């Protein structure tokens, strides 16, 4: 059992590290946004940090949509087992 919790602790630590690396990468990208002249395929994309904000909002919206979908479309695992 101790191996199990040791493994869980290791995973948690990895998660923490990954989060910091991601935050750092995000920070670098924010800086880059104002260093290079970025332009997109459509006009809206030229708004500073548009891809970053859009992606973040969309990802949260997808999860909210998923939670909502669960309410209407989720059934027991054996729902179709009577076939």
């Amino acid at each position, binding site marked *: 059992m101790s191996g199990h919790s040791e*493994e869980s602790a290791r995973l948690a630590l990895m998660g923490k590290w990954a989060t910091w690396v991601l935050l750092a990468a995000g920070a670098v*990208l924010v800086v880059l946004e104002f260093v290079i002249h970025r332009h997109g395929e459509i006009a809206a994309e030229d708004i500073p940090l548009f891809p970053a904000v859009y*992606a973040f909002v969309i*990802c949260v919206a*997808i999860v909210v949509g*998923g939670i909502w979908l669960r309410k209407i479309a989720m059934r027991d695992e054996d729902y179709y087992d009577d076939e």
Partner: protein
Amino acid sequence: MMSDILTSMPTSMPPGFVMMLAALPVIFVPHHLRQIFMLAVIGMSAWSLTAGAGDHWVVGLMGLELVLYRADHLSLPFAIVFHIAAALNVFYGWHEKRVTDHAAGIAYAGAAIAALHAGDLLTLFIWWEATAVTSVFLILASGTQRARHAAMRYLIVQVLSGVLLLSGAAMIYSETGSMTFTAMELGSLATWLVFIAFGFKAAFPLLNGWLQDAYPEATVVGTVVLSAFTTKLAIYALARGFAGTDLLIVIGCLMTAFPVFFAVIENDMRRVLAYSLNNQLGFMVVAIGIGTELAINGAVAHAFAHIIYKGLLFMSMGAVLYRVGTIKASELGGLYRCMPWTTVFCIVGAMSISAFPLFSGFAAKSLIMSALGYKGLVAAYLVLLAASAGVLHHSGIKIPYFAFFGHDGGHKVKEAPFGMLVAMGLASALCIGIGSFPALFYQLLPYSIDYNPYDASHVVGQLQLLIFSILAFTFLMTFKFYPPELRSTVLNTDWLYRRVAPAIGRPILSAIMVVWGSVIAAIAGYRDAILEAVERLMHAPITGPTVPGRAVMVQTLVLIVILAIGYLVAG
């Protein structure tokens, strides 16, 4: 005589034929030798692609001209990647001793390759149905009751698609006198039938239930094999038949958007990938709808790259299922230590599908996004941008995170078999190769283009999209907003024919049976009454003040009338 049958002499057998023919001997060749034999056969089939562009096999049949081998700039890239996928699948299934997977797999790939080279709609129909009939064994081979039912539903939908295609083809032939498979315009019933037939196999919205229903029920090797061919054959067919059809842009947008929500809450990881496959098809369908040279290149490039990275993702999940015995996200986690190579390969697949720069998805998807931008299709562009974030979310993060990291599932298993690792390694190399050398990759595409996806602006924009999507995931996980993986069934469009149709259909059928029963009973009643009357007449001759001859005459008359009525009714 032969010259009557073959109006043009073949340079070699049409691609794919030899693979279908090999399915029988494959059964008798011993393990290991079988895999080598299959690779040789795939090589032979690929060799026949060297015949180059043109109509190479034209066969006369009952007054019809069947073009069995037509090659051009559109069929070639699909043919190349279908052969690559078939070969990778042989490596992936090297450990598998059950012969069904191999025989069905090679026949199925062969049928799909043959379909790519069909120059007319009847030939297309034949191989269209052949892909259905051969691939169903990959699902049946699972051997469970659940898989058998899913296989039958899969077969019904696939055959229905074929029947629609044949009906449309017959109507086109009667309208135009030609069966040539070429660009069509939606307008007549005939072309709509063909369009819907393609739509079933391309998993259009509402016609998609079979995909998520059946693919995850196939065997470990079977799902990988299935993921490559059927849907991309449909993409090829749409690109040839309906490029530039505006409706496809709307359909494609819906296809990219909806499966994302399902993928987020689905617990079966192979089903998550089946939803993700549907979403990826949406990108290709949108590109076909745009129809410009850049867009068609984008659709073909995306199909090419997708077959490899999606196959790779299915391979990694297949390896997990093979070793752990389950593929439910709720039971998995922490496998990175036991299966480090599989983890790395899965991450390569995840980064490719998410379109990280230097990975294949980036080289392919950029073409589609640019084609949308050039056309000024802003709404569709924003939907596909959102869907790109969604892809990253469910395929890029969810798949590797919940299988290999996440919480510790407590599984102590071995790394995937060597053959699986070879297949995943080769697929990974292709993903990185395509992403790193896009100019070489673009040379395979139907139209020559001068396009460079790697400008600083584009790369930074894409990285923003990706990194902030992952940050959103991290944020949601950290603050416990992310829905936990639950053992569950999520209703999809197959629910319509598994639950709704029977719920409505059964009472209607029973009502019809009741009415039918009473009609039959009434007819039987009348029949008995008539027979009884005749019987009475025959056995109780008219008595009284008559001569017996009269009774005989009346009986004869009645019999004549009955016989006459009987004759009329029977006539």
